[in-house]
């Protein structure tokens, strides 16, 4: 255990993943409330294509991912049910992105070894520069969410009502998609394109029984996310397992624990 505390890369991994998961909390709440998990997944898949194209033309993977994730998020948010169901459209776009991203990455001879890293993350390889990047992005996302909170919440509770009454704040909705895309971009190195949505989805879902207000749920989600990261790393270290997936498992374990405890308490409570 002593070497766990001494290894610099583990500290960087714990801090980076913790910050990322914490920033995912409030955004993830809206993903849950507005049932956007599927959209988030497709955005993340398109992010993989962005990373691949970034490598192809020689820009940083984070920039490529962010750019394509933003575009994908904007396109998907315009999807309506008029010609084909929006969910089908979103799913098709996302999987096209995943397939094309995989093909482009395979064609780039030099990065063949990193394919797994793009899909499941490579959190132990986080550099100090990555850490600063994640911290800056995370703070930006949290600040943005605080500023957009009221219009976003209004939209999450009664989207059609707000739109009909001229309080739909489309600008806030667009900004929210951009923030989500940023999390996806920075999450690529931490948990990868296949698991980033787990960090958006599981901590808020775990937080639900603990909260009676939207803000309470966001705070708990932030906390649970921040705790899952080091918890997962600890588990990964003990079992010599891959780090990114272990953090997702840790979040899932917290989810199960909290919901189980909640169900038990509900039984014990006098009726």
């Amino acid at each position, binding site marked *: 255990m002593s070497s766990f505390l001494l290894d610099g890369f583990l500290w960087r991994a714990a801090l980076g993943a913790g910050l990322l998961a914490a920033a995912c909390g409030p955004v993830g709440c809206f993903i*849950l409330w507005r049932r956007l998990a599927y959209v988030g997944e497709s955005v993340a898949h398109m992010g993989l294509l962005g990373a691949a194209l970034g490598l192809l033309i020689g820009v940083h993977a984070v920039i490529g991912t962010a750019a394509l994730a933003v575009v994908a998020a904007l396109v998907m948010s315009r999807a309506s049910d008029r010609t084909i169901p929006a969910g089908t459209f979103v799913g098709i776009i996302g999987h096209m992105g995943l397939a094309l991203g995989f093909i482009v990455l395979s064609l780039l001879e030099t990065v063949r070894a990193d394919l797994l890293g793009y899909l499941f993350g490579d959190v132990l390889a986080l550099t100090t520069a990555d850490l600063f990047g994640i911290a800056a992005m995370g703070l930006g996302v949290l600040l943005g969410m605080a500023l957009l909170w009221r219009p976003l919440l209004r939209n999450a*509770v*009664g989207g*059609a*009502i707000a739109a*009909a*009454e001229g309080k739909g704040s489309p600008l806030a909705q667009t900004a929210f998609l951009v923030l989500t895309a940023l999390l996806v971009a920075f999450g690529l190195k931490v948990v990868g394109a296949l698991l980033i949505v787990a960090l958006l989805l599981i901590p808020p879902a775990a937080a639900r029984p603990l909260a009676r*207000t939207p803000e309470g749920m966001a705070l708990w989600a932030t906390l649970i996310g921040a705790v899952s990261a080091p918890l997962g790393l600890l588990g990964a270290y003990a079992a010599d397992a891959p780090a990114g997936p272990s953090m997702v498992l840790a979040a899932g374990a917290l989810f199960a624990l909290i919901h189980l405890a909640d169900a038990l308490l509900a039984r014990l409570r006098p009726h």
Partner: protein
Amino acid sequence: MADTQIAERRPGILIAAEHLRFSAGRLVILDDVSLAIHRGEIVTLIGPNGSGKTSLLKVLLGLLRCRGTVTRQKGLKIGYVPQQFAPDLSLPITVNRFLDLFAGKAAGRAALARVGIDDATGERQLSALSGGEMARVLLARAIAAKPDLLVLDEPLAGVDIAGEAQLYQLIAELRDELSCGILLVSHDLHVVMGQSDRIICLNHHICCEGDAKSVVRDPAFIALFGSRSALALYPHHHDHTHGLSAAQGQQDHDHE
């Protein structure tokens, strides 16, 4: 374009629609529908299921795009009660907080009191409400911000019978109090028609339009709802013809 913008030219008109055409695939939902809602009037939209009532409301509210023009009075404040409303169960929010998102705290509490929602219910979770309670809360939310135009899409579905009469009475009072216009979709013909200033009967196109008395005598109304439902609207009329000729019978009574 300029000569069609009725709502901007005439001061009493809150919202006006002209020549709306909307179709989903080959199915024509709205076929050349024009209407205007004035300040201080209750307009009730009736029509069978699938006749385009909700689509028409959505077009007026800007939630649905279609051919034709919709013009609104400048700065028109709308209060909307949708037919369906189900926030996600994963969103923890109390009734009071829900109203606070749309109007001031004091106005929200006052509106809840008027629709018969007590303080304890105000502190309950929105997702834990019954259908009738939710209908009351939605009405309270819509009136809390004192709108110029209330758009109510079957607002009292699930409310008990006693509450229904009270709330329709409240809606009529609000019209006078806020001097707002009210556009109402309802299937409670017997309750609603007596309080409506104007009734619009929609079956993809506007079949007939006018006050309750004239609409129930209209052949188009009778064809849609049957002569019995027309008679049921006026229980105090004595039906001497026993439905043999409903339209004729109604006319006779008017001469009494």
